C-alpha cells in the first residue's frame, strides 16, 4: 500500500502531496522536509529505490519535477516506478505536454487524476483510456454547469 506521494521541484518546492495514512500535520511536514532533502542529495545514476525509515521510497525525476512514493516493504518497486510513469502519462495526455506550471495552476486537476488512478493507497485503474474517460466525464459535467450558469446570468434560463 502506498503511504504517501509527493511531487516537488528541483529547488525543493512541494507541488503536490497526497497522504494515505493519517499523520499529524507536524509529522507530515517533518517527513516531507527530510525526504525532499534526502532525494535531492542523490546523484542521477543512483538507484531509484531507497530504504528510508520504515518505508521504501521509490522516486523518479521528470524534467524539473520529482515524483516520489513511499511504499510498504512488500510492495513491488519496479511497478511503483511504472505507476509514477503512468501518472505522468495521464497528466501529459490531459494537459498536453505537461509542465510544472500546469500542475501549479491546476493542482486540483492533478489531484482528481490521481484519485482515479490510486485510491486509498491502492492502485485502482491502470487503463489510461478509462482514467481519461472518467476525467472527461467530470469535465463535461463542469462545462454543462458553466453553460447553465452563463445562460442563467443573461436571463435565458
Amino acid at each position: 500500500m502506498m503511504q504517501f506521494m509527493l511531487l516537488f521541484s528541483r529547488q525543493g518546492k512541494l507541488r503536490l502531496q497526497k497522504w494515505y495514512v493519517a499523520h499529524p500535520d507536524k509529522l507530515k511536514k517533518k517527513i516531507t522536509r527530510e525526504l525532499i532533502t534526502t532525494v535531492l542529495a542523490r546523484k542521477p545514476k543512483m538507484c531509484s529505490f531507497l530504504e528510508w525509515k520504515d518505508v521504501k521510497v521509490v522516486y523518479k525525476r521528470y524534467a524539473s519535477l520529482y515524483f516520489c512514493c513511499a511504499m510498504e516493504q512488500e510492495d513491488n518497486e519496479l511497478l511503483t516506478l511504472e505507476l509514477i510513469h503512468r501518472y505522468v502519462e495521464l497528466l501529459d495526455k490531459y494537459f498536453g505536454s505537461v509542465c510544472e506550471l500546469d500542475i501549479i495552476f491546476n493542482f486540483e486537476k492533478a489531484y482528481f487524476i490521481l484519485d482515479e488512478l490510486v485510491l486509498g493507497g491502492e492502485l485502482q485503474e491502470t487503463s489510461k483510456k478509462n482514467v481519461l474517460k472518467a476525467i472527461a466525464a467530470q469535465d463535461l459535467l463542469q462545462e454543462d454547469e458553466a453553460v447553465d450558469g452563463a445562460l442563467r446570468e443573461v436571463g435565458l434560463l
Partner: protein
Amino acid sequence: MPAVRGDGMRGLAVFISDIRNCKSKEAEIKRINKELANIRSKFKGDKTLDGYQKKKYVCKLLFIFLLGHDIDFGHMEAVNLLSSNKYSEKQIGYLFISVLVNTNSDLIKLIIQSIKNDLQSRNPIHVNLALQCIANIGSKDMAEAFGTEIPKLLVSGDTMDVVKQSAALCLLRLFRKSPEIIPGGEWTSRIIHLLNDPHMGVVTAATSLIDALVKKNPDEYKGCVTLAVARLSRIVTASYTDLQDYTYYFVPAPWLSVKLLRLLQNYTPPSEEPGVRGRLSECLETIFNKAQEPPKSKKVQHSNAKNAVLFEAISLIIHNDSEPNLLVRACNQLGQFLSNRETNLRYLALESMCHLATSEFSHEAVKKHQEVVILSMKMEKDVSVRQQAVDLLYAMCDKTNAEEIVQEMLAYLETADYSIREEMVLKVAILAEKYATDFTWYVDVILNLIRIAGDYVSEEVWYRVIQIVINREEVQGYAAKTVFEALQAPTCHENMVKVGGYILGEFGNLIAGDTRSSPLVQFELLHSKYHLCSAATRALLLSTYIKLVNLFPEIKNRVQEVFRADSNLRSADVELQQRASEYLQLSIVASSDVLATVLEEMPAFPERESSILAVLKKKKPGRIPDDVRESKSPQPNITPAPVINNIANTNSSSADLLGLSTPPGTNAPTGNGLLDVLGDLYTTPKISPTTVQQNNIKKFLFKNNGVLFENDLIQIGVKSEYRQNLGRIGLFYGNKTQSPIQNVRPELHWNDLHKLNVQMKPMEPVLEAGAQIQQMLTAECIEDFLDSPSMSVSFLYNNVPQKISMKLPLTLNKFFEPTEMNGESFFARWKNLGGEQQRAQKIFKAQGSIDLTATRTKLAGFGMQLLDGIDPNPDNFVCAGIVHTRVQQVGCLMRLEPNKQAQMFRLTVRSSKETVSQEICNLLADQF
C-alpha cells in the same frame, strides 16, 4: 499564465501568479496573509457567498496549505460545498476535506451525512466522489455509517464497473479501520468471485481487498487460490494484444499479475489440488521463459514492467520454497541481472538473492555468484547498492566460504562508507565467530577489525572477543601474543588498548617466558598508552595492573609507583581514585595467597548467543535472516543459548566496566567492588533470610528498568520494552551471596490471563554464587486489565527454603502509544468524551510540596504524550495516548491540574472505555 482547464477560477489563477511573482519569502508571506485576511472576512461577512465564490476561496486555502502554511479555518465552508448541487463545487469540497480534514473533526457527522446523500445519487460520478472520499479518509465512524451499504454496492449486479472499483478499495480502507465490518458467510464467495469479473479494473481493485481479507482470515478465503491461479494463467499466456488497454508497454496487465502473485504469497503452495499447483508452476515457468525472450520494446517501461512481474514471481517461489528447479532457475535469472546496466535491477537482484540464500535448495546456487557480489560491494557507485551486496555476502556465507568473505569484507572496510561501517563491523564479527573452526583466526579477524575500524567497533564486539578467549583455553596464549604485538604499533585504537589490557591481565603469564615480552615489558607497553586513554579505559587498565601484580610479584614496586602517582591516587575522577587507592592497599596488605584468591583467573562465561547478533537484529529488524545458515552448517563449538544480552546492568557505566573485569565469579558480589570482597573475607556475613525489602511497584509506572526486588540474598532487576500491545520483560536474578542458590522457582499468580497473557520462559534452577541469570517473560495485552500480575520466587539457600513475592511491573499504561495532537483536536475529543461512562476523576494531596519539573519527568515516563501549550494554564499537564490491546485500541486523554495553595492535584482521565479511564486514573492517583 498557462491556460486553465475546466471552468477556470480566474481569481485563483491570479492569486497563484501573484505568489509566483513574489521576489522574497517575506513578500510571499505578506501576500498570503493578506489573502487569508480577505478570505476570513468574506467567510465572516454578512453577505452570503454563492457557491462559486466559496469554491474559489476554499481552493485558495488549499493552495496556501500546499505551500506549507497551516490552515485553521474554511472547513465549514468546504463542508457546505459538499451539499451543492453543482458537481464542480462538490468536487472541490471533497478535495479540501480529503486533504485537510482530520478524521476526528467535529464536522465528521456533517461530512458523513453529505456522503450518504451522494451515495444515493443516480449519477455514478457523484457516487464515486463520495466513495473516493471514504477511501481516502475513512475512519471508524465511517465504517459504522457505511459498513452495510458498501459491501452491497460491491457485489450487486446493478452497480457500474467504475463504481465497483471504488467500492472495493473503499471497503478495504474501512476494513483496515474496523476489521469487523466485513460480513462473512455467503459474502465471502461473492467477494472472492470478483476475481472472475470480466472487467480488469474491477479485478485489479478487488485483488487488493481480497489480499487484506486473506491476511486476516486465510482459511475462510482459501477459495481465492484457485481463482487467482486461473486468472494469472490467463494473463501470462495472453498475447499483448488480448488485453487492450490493460497491456502496458507490451506486457499484459503487469499490475494485476503482481497483485495476484502477492495474493498467492499468503498461502503455502496449493498441495491438496495438484492441478492448481501444476498450473501455477506452468505460470511461473512461462514468466521465466518470457524473461528470456528478446524485448518487444527498447523502452525502460517495457523492461521494468516485465521484470516487476518476474521479481514478484521469484518472491512467490522463495515464499513457497518447495520447487528446487524453480529456485535454481530464479537464482540464475538474478545472476544475469547482477551485471545489468540498470542500477535498479542490480539493486533488486541483490536484495532478492539475499532471500534465495536462505533457502536450502538455492543456497549453493547463490554461492556461485560470490565473485560478482564481491565486485558489487567494491565497485558500485551507489552506497545503497553496496549495502545490498554486503547483506547478500552476509546471507550467503557458510563454513566453506567464510574465510574468503570475511577477508574481502575486512579489506573493503578500510574504504567503506561511514554510513555502513558499523553494521559491517557487526557482520564481520558475527561471521568470524560463527564460522571459526580455528579460534586463532577469529582473534586475528577481530583485532584487525579494531585496527581498521576501531571507531565503529561497539562494546559488544570487544566484550565478545574477551568472552570467547576466556572460554577457550587453546586460544589464550595466541591471543596474548597477538594483542601484545598489536599494541606495539605507535598509535593504536583505544578499543585495542581495552582488549589488550584485559587479555594481558588474564593471560600475560602465558607469554612472559619470552624476554621480548617479559612482565615489565608488558606492563610498560600497556602503561605507555595509559595517558592517552579515557577514564573508563584507565580504570580497566588499573584492574589489569593489579592482576599483573598477582601474576608477576617482581614488578609489584613498579606498579605500586603507578598507583601512587598523583594523577591516579588523587585523580579528579572518583572511580580512578578509588581503584588506585584500593588496589594499592590490596597490593600492600594482602598476602600472596589472598591476592591469588581475589584475583583468580576468570571463570568461563556461560555460553550464550552472541550479543552482537542481538545488536544487529535490533539495527535492522526484518532484514537479517534470523540465523545465518543455522540449519546446514555444523556449529563450530559454540552452542547458541537463548538471546541474552550482556549481563543487563542497571548500574552506572563504570559499574558496567566492572561487570566485565569481574564477571560472575566467586570473588565479587554484584557491582559492589573489592571492598565487599575484603569485608566478606574478614567478617561473617550476616544474612537475614526473612528480611524482605519492600518492592515498590508504583515507581515502575514511570519507568521500564530498575531493581524490582532486593534483600540480602537476591536481587531481581527488570528491563522491559513494549510495542503496541506486546511486551518483553527480562528479569535478572542476581545471587548476592557466597554460596549457590538452588531450586529457584519463579511462579506467576495471575488469573486474568484472558485479558493480559503473560508467559514465562523456563530458567536455570541454580544461581551460582555471585552470578546473574536472566529470565524472559512475554506479555500480550488482549483487553484492558486492572492492577498487575504478582509472582513469587521460591528457592533454597543453605538448604533453607525461602520464598519472596512481588508484583510485576505490568500495568495497563505500558501499552500506551503516545499521540501528538493540537489544541483544537484535543479539546474536540475531550468534549466528545464527556459522558458519565467515559470520565474518571480523583482529587488527591501532593506527596510533598508540588514540584512541577518532577511531575513532568514522571509523566513523560508514563507512556502518554505530554502535550505542551494546549492547556490555557501553563501549570496544568495534558496528555494523550492510545492503549493498544488485541481486541481494540482505546484513545485516552488525561489532564492533571496542580493546586499549589492547597497542595492538591486534580486528575481527570477520559477515554472511550469506562474501565480504561478508571484504571488509568487509579494508577496515577497519589503518585505526585
